[in-house]
């Protein structure tokens, strides 16, 4: 049994504390109305952020400079591919998902090859790759929004007693990823590389193989997010991935993962994703304008990273 004191030493606890405080402030403002509905919506929307956030967490954990900027483009392309292949037919759902994941896999391989072959920083590599990826999405869809098959839309939106099915599945998935991070050879290798790539290499860890796997994992998760998001929002829109560039990085940082690499945790990503959604909901409830919402979102991220600090020198 974990004591309260131990709990408060976990780096991820603060994202949950923040989320609860913001929820309370909102509910007090509305004098108790809609508190349950807000949580239900938060679970729904946070799910997508968590999926890409986990991929981004593994990438960021491999050390300074590692970040995947191709996630938004990847989400758009996978959504478009999945909807095209499925063509509003329930029977084609598995094939559509497989096609989208395959495209994500290829994007991941492409990202890594650019990093490795051209010896350029991951930021530049994933950014350059994202130009090609988003262009492919534009060319494939011609800006037309194709509807998802009914069964996919149902699975992505169904709730039991207000709790979204997808959120429950992704909570389970996050638990699995948490085990992968802290107990598996792969997860341990990621953290070791993040702490000291040279020491990790000398200790016999296949550094490049692990980095390859990490970029592929992030890309495949972005693809999965794209498919589910298209099912959830009634079709694949080209701009549906845009907000996930900031969101994927923000949830990692707010969740208590070190941006310097080598220190990571999965629970914080859920807390941070809920926090981010509840923050926007609170500002909406308070009647803040779009400008204020943007400013607050930005300031909170800068504030959190300032308090958390960079890597200790």
């Amino acid at each position: 049994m974990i004591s309260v004191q131990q709990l408060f030493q976990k780096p991820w606890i603060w994202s949950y504390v923040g989320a609860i405080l913001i929820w309370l402030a909102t509910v007090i403002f509305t004098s108790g109305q809609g508190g349950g509905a807000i949580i239900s919506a938060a679970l729904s929307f946070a799910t997508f952020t968590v999926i890409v956030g986990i991929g981004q967490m593994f990438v960021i954990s491999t050390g300074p400079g590692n970040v995947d900027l191709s996630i938004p483009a990847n989400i758009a392309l996978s959504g478009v591919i999945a909807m095209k292949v499925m063509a509003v037919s329930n029977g084609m759902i598995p094939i559509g998902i497989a096609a989208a994941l395959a495209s994500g896999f290829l994007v991941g391989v492409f990202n890594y090859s650019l990093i490795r072959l051209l010896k350029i920083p991951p930021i530049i590599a994933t950014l350059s790759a994202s130009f090609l990826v988003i262009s492919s999405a534009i060319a494939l869809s011609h800006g037309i929004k194709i509807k998802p098959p009914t069964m996919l839309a149902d699975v992505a939106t169904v709730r039991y007693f207000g709790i979204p099915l997808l959120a429950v599945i992704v909570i389970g998935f996050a638990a699995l990823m948490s085990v992968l991070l802290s107990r598996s050879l792969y997860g341990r290798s990621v953290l070791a590389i993040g702490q000291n790539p040279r020491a990790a290499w000398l200790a016999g860890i296949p550094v490049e193989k692990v980095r390859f796997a990490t970029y592929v994992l992030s890309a495949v998760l972005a693809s999965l997010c794209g498919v589910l998001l298209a099912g959830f929002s009634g079709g694949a829109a080209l701009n549906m991935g845009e907000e996930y560039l900031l969101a994927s990085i923000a949830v990692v940082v707010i969740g208590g993962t070190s941006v310097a690499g080598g220190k990571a945790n999965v629970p914080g990503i859920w807390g941070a994703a809920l926090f981010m959604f509840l923050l926007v909901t609170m500002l909406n409830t308070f009647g803040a304008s779009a400008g204020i919402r943007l400013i607050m979102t930005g300031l909170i991220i800068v504030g959190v990273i300032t308090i958390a600090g960079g890597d200790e020198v």
Partner: protein
Amino acid sequence: MVAILTNPKFLRSALPGISFLVLLFAIFYLQPRAMSYFGMNLMLQYAVPIALATIAQMFIITVNDLDLSIGPFVGLVACITATYLHQSPLLGALALIASIAAYGALGALIQWRNLPSIVVTLGMSFVWLGIAVMILPTPGGKAPEWIKALMSVKTPYIPFPVIAAAVIALLVHLLLMRSSFGTVLRGAGGNPKAVARAGWSLMKTKVIMYSMAGFFGVLAGLSLVGLTTSADAHIADRYTLYSIAGVILGGGEFVGGRISPIGAVLGALTLALAGSFLIFMRISPDWQIGAQGAILIIVLALRALINRREG
């Protein structure tokens, strides 16, 4: 002669100029009418704000950081210019000075807490956008007459954008590459510890570099509004990508303070031309962004090849 031409060092520094000329001659071949005062003016108009934003990004890259907020920042400057600077010049000027100061403060914050610049600037991009949306919720505003007049000036023989780009490149080159102070600034990117040991304040260099970035970001916004004559919060969203791509095309390295102001301006000109080139090639607009990504990757690949030969 051949030895010089195949020397990796020479090749690397000539690459930006070569890629620019290759693209220019390809355009002349496809569309001979572009080879005129009017044609060049039209194709390179927007090169001036892109070049200024690229220089801003280059200052940040010199100290091993990356600015993901320069696009929205240029957009904010455009909004301030088309509203406050037009209606009450003093208030507008103060707002622009304050935004440069804000950039300097960001540099201080990043240095003080040793923060990753991409997270901070990604967060700030939302702040800039938010302020811009509050100033100008819908596209509009009006550019001050003097900026409009400056940006549409008809210089004899050589189009204005070419002259402006050359002046920008030379000034920044003199400041960063030829002065002793510029050497220290670049050194802060090359070997921060050595620069600190030698008695220079890293905090000061970072604040100066970020302020310079803010200053050139403001110039980019001013010149952009001079061309478009009205503003919108999202007017410069793509400038973040343009500026990073411009520095890369111009031969800047991402770490170690190895940069080239002349190359960066050439990179910005190349990007501006790439748009026209893709139109003349009749490449579908769907693939425009992709083609720009492809050009970037090709240039990076060429550079990787040259670097390998240098060993």
